[in-house]
């Protein structure tokens, strides 16, 4: 079974974000890490490979920094890593990104399963997965909390999807695209041997020409969305009123009265 995991780099979730007058976004001294949602996708790919055989290829669209995410995935156990990048990809929104990733996956050929996190912690659009499934014509299986069954020979898959109302049980066909949610597994830490392997691994960079991407479909010209303004949210006025009383009962009653007066209960 050939499994592809799509990932990207993102600022650490604890990073303090800021934006300057020119609109340039900064995460200070915080490191770039693998998008945390994608660690679940990598883990699931490794579990499936180990159970069914085959190989896991991790791909990331991005400049040099994207190598860090790829290295993390390889250190966890992925077999091959490819970075997809071209200067012309700069400014790609999710429409263009899904096109670029779909071209790279088509170049890989016989892919049974694409895995990715449900979204990324930076822009948090959750849009690349569904758009990529649409472009590839793969069975769209987003928000998956469990893969109940997969049979690469019979080309079948059954999953549970975590929706607001509960779990939707879906059976479908391969090739499929699975977007994972956190509940699906417990991602492993990269091993020492894995980290050494990742440091040495050759990671090819595929350009627009390599994946046969049309110029009009990548970067700003291939995008539907621009984001001309980025700004810091207004500081929340939060003067916390600490309720002090002789005991818990008295404090609770004062709080209840205040919340009733605020009309929030």
């Amino acid at each position: 079974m050939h499994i592809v995991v799509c990932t990207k780099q993102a600022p650490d979730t604890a990073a303090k974000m800021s934006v300057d007058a020119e609109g340039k976004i900064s995460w200070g001294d915080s490191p770039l890490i693998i998008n945390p949602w994608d660690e679940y996708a990598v883990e699931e790919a490794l579990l499936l490979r180990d159970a069914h055989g085959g190989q896991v290829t991790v791909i990331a669209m991005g400049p040099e920094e994207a190598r860090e995410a790829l290295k993390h995935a390889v250190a966890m156990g992925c077999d091959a890593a490819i970075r997809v990048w071209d200067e012309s990809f700069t400014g790609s929104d999710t429409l263009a990104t899904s096109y670029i990733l779909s071209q790279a996956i088509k170049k890989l050929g016989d892919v049974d399963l694409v895995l990715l996190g449900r979204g990324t912690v930076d822009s948090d659009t959750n849009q690349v997965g569904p758009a990529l499934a649409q472009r590839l014509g793969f069975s769209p299986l987003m928000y998956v909390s469990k893969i109940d069954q997969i049979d690469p020979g019979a080309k079948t898959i059954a999953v549970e999807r975590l929706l607001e109302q509960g779990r939707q049980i879906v059976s479908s066909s391969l090739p499929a695209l699975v977007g994972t949610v956190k509940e699906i597994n417990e991602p492993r830490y990269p091993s020492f041997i894995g980290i050494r392997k990742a440091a040495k691994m050759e990671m090819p960079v595929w350009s627009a020409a390599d994946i046969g991407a049309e110029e009009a479909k990548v970067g700003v010209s291939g995008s539907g969305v621009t984001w001309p303004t980025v700004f810091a949210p207004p500081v929340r006025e939060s003067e916390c009123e600490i309720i002090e009383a002789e005991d818990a009962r008295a404090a609770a009653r004062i709080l209840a009265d205040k919340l009733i007066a605020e009309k929030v209960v």
Partner: protein
Amino acid sequence: MTTQGVWVWIEQFKGEVMSPSWEALGAARVIADTYGGGITACLFGAGVQGVAQQAIQYGADRVFVADDATLEDFRAEAYAALLAQLAQEHSPAVILFGATTCGRELAPTVAAALDTGAIADVTALEIENHSVVATRPIYSGKLLAKCVISERRPQVISLRPRAFPRPEPDDSLSGEIIEVAPALSEDEIKNKVTGFTTAEGQVSLADAEIIVSGGRGVNGPDGFAPIQELAQVLGGAVGASRAAVDAGWVPYAHQVGQTGKTVSPDLYIACGISGAIQHQAGMRTSKVIVAINKDPDAPIFKLARYGIVGDLFQVVPELTSAFKEKLT
């Protein structure tokens, strides 16, 4: 090609409409004048004829209803194929979705099918140069971005639940109901829904007006009992911090924060939650935040309107009985 009209996808589950769809109809009214052509609701399902009239009461001038067994369960393939086909026939300027789980899956699928832009999880809308300027949180709300789809149409936009007011239904409103046929036959849809398990009696976090959350301080699965009781008395939902979920005390579906749900209830009561930046990312837009924590230096107090420094196992049950008494 000239495009006109604002469309709203009406999301229903077993005949019941998700509130963010009504909020989207309200938001549609605000931008509809710019584009002419009124507001069109798109309603897909099986046995959903009755819902069409509701959409009119919430402000739709016209409702496309596709009522078919193939549309009974939400399936992105079937829904997107039909919505894209209708959009190609009628060229709307905007399609709005509630940014629920299904809405956030359907919107980018439709946008990719139509080769247009999609903006997710929007918290404010305005119009500039005939395009929608949509504000959305990025980096978990640490920053905000104003996004525009200036050239392509339709503009596909999903709206964060509870970010836009839900209009009052008005039964004096009238509109046109148009039946449409599905775009795909069952044979053409790869995904088959074979079951559904619901968590009984649970309030969805995204829609909840009140959320009572527990964190590391609840000390174990049993510690969620008083949290649950308070939520029940208030008619709210139970939330949790990552620490409580990772410890296995409550299922992941309850997690609020950067790797969980983003919520903005009227009231958020954080019990035994220190308030790490990742947790704040998921709840900082709540209207009133209450913190109950033993540690007076916990960062959650910086975000809270009201705080009680104390043992949640004493305070929360007292709060429950106070509300029981005062709210009846």
